[in-house]
């Protein structure tokens, strides 16, 4: 897609059926898996401008193994539920307008950033706990979605029953790895076997968001107004979402007393959802998370290897450090080595906009 204002003006005039004026075009600097563009436009006859979000794959191919079309499907379907998501407007793959497909959704006012949340000062503890609880309430909404009624079962790999949930994630991860891999990684086979031997039983089969938490959602004040980044959505064990969560169950110990953490967040989640997620299951799904990150790392590596001039610099980073940290974390979780330092794991999420 050509994101110059001139091309966007022509395209949106055609698509909206009336002259459109482009005010601003900005590529969102966060996110690694796909491109996100903010396009501020005024439609003919309107005095109000609006910002549209364009999502498209990276020129050398997305890091995420699932398709952009699946992401569009999730947003469209969730638009019929209570889950807060931006409304999708349309899908475009006409080669007359774009060399790779994209979709457009509305932008919901708010920010991924929550001032003070990462500040270690105890005066922000109350904010951290309030945000965590808000996130638990919204995850509960996701996990109660009628995914069968909405047609998710026809698009996603569905486990046979609650006991099959974990096995289904392992099968899916290995299928995706086989599809994208450049070279075999023996550790993937070893971990897959270990996970198959130790898979937990899910409390229920639910729609799961995938990557979630700080940086993945839109907040206005303390309210989570839009859940974003659905590219890793799945049908399975709600415990997976707690393993895929970034920062939103912070471990807070004050005067020797634990005032918040994953255990407290799970208790709160149980009180609002009625779903009992075991902390050991969350740890098990941490391995699935690591497997998925390795798949993304390998996919990024193949993109860099095959299309070095098209690949983005972040794909080169994802293909290197991210993959290593996940491999080391996996063998540590199996009791075969030491884990990478906690600081190194935290640094993976660090950005110049939100330094640690």
């Amino acid at each position, binding site marked *: 897609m050509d994101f110059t204002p001139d091309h966007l003006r022509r395209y949106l005039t055609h698509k909206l059926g009336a002259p459109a004026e482009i005010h601003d075009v900005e590529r969102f600097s966060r996110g*690694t898996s796909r491109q996100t563009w903010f396009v501020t436009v005024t439609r003919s006859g309107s005095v109000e401008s609006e910002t549209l979000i364009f999502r498209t794959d990276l020129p050398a191919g997305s890091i995420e193994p699932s398709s952009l079309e699946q992401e569009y499907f999730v947003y469209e379907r969730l638009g019929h539920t209570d889950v807060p998501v931006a409304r999708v407007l349309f899908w475009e793959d006409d080669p007359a307008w774009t060399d790779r497909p994209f979709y457009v959704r509305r932008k919901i006012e708010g920010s991924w950033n929550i001032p003070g949340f990462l500040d270690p000062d105890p005066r922000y503890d109350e904010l951290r706990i309030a945000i965590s609880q808000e996130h638990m309430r919204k995850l509960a909404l996701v996990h109660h979605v009628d995914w069968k009624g909405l047609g998710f079962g026809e698009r996603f790999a569905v486990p046979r029953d609650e006991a099959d949930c974990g096995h289904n994630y392992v099968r899916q991860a290995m299928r995706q790895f086989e599809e994208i891999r450049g070279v*075999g990684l*023996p550790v993937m086979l070893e971990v897959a076997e270990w996970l198959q031997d130790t898979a937990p039983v899910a409390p229920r089969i639910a729609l799961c968001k995938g990557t979630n938490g700080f940086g993945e959602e839109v907040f206005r004040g303390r309210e989570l107004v839009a859940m974003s980044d659905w590219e890793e959505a799945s049908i399975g064990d709600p415990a997976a979402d707690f393993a895929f969560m970034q920062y939103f169950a912070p471990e807070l110990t004050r005067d020797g007393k634990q005032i918040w953490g994953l255990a407290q967040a799970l208790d709160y989640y149980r009180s609002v959802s009625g779903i009992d997620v075991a902390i050991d299951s969350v740890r098990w799904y941490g391995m699935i998370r690591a497997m998925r990150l390795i798949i993304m790392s390998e996919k990024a590596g193949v993109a860099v290897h095959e299309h070095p001039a098209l690949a983005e610099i972040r794909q080169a*980073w994802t293909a290197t*450090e991210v993959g290593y940290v996940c491999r080391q974390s996996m*063998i540590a979780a199996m009791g075969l080595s030491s884990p*990478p330092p906690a600081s190194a794991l935290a*640094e993976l999420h660090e950005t110049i906009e939100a*330094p640690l």
Partner: protein
Amino acid sequence: MITVTTTDLLNTIDAALVQYVEPSLGDIGGRSALATVRHLLHFVQVRIEREGQVLLDDIAALKSTLTEVSSYHRSTGDDAGAAAEALDAAAAPDATKYRSLNDLAIEARALREALYKALARLQALRATRGDNPQYKALRATIRAYIVRQIEQEGEIVAPAFFGRGPRR
């Protein structure tokens, strides 16, 4: 003989990025990309210095592990399979010819692919041979290789990235 080493050059390039390029960047996307570029430049520097030995060690370990896989299958009357083929294909290198990091990486990748296939085959045999001591010993050998290889990877990744600021 060029006095300036590749390490010198990478250090000077990085200093130029900090001194001249970074201050001129107004938008967050550019500054984020530059942060990633600087990390990767440092990674390239560490790899130039250390990866040759890491790859040589890895190739030797892979050959040794594949030899054990091949011997196991022969001892059980199986077809020796991909492990033996990979070992045959990995001819002894000409000691008089310089081998670049790319050459070494290509050889290591081919051997690792063979080990991947060999492990998949062994996993398929687990239901019938899982209690066999030779089978268990071979699986332990492969597991030890995997751990050693990842830890070696850490020796070039950790000093290049850890504790050096935001990656993006």
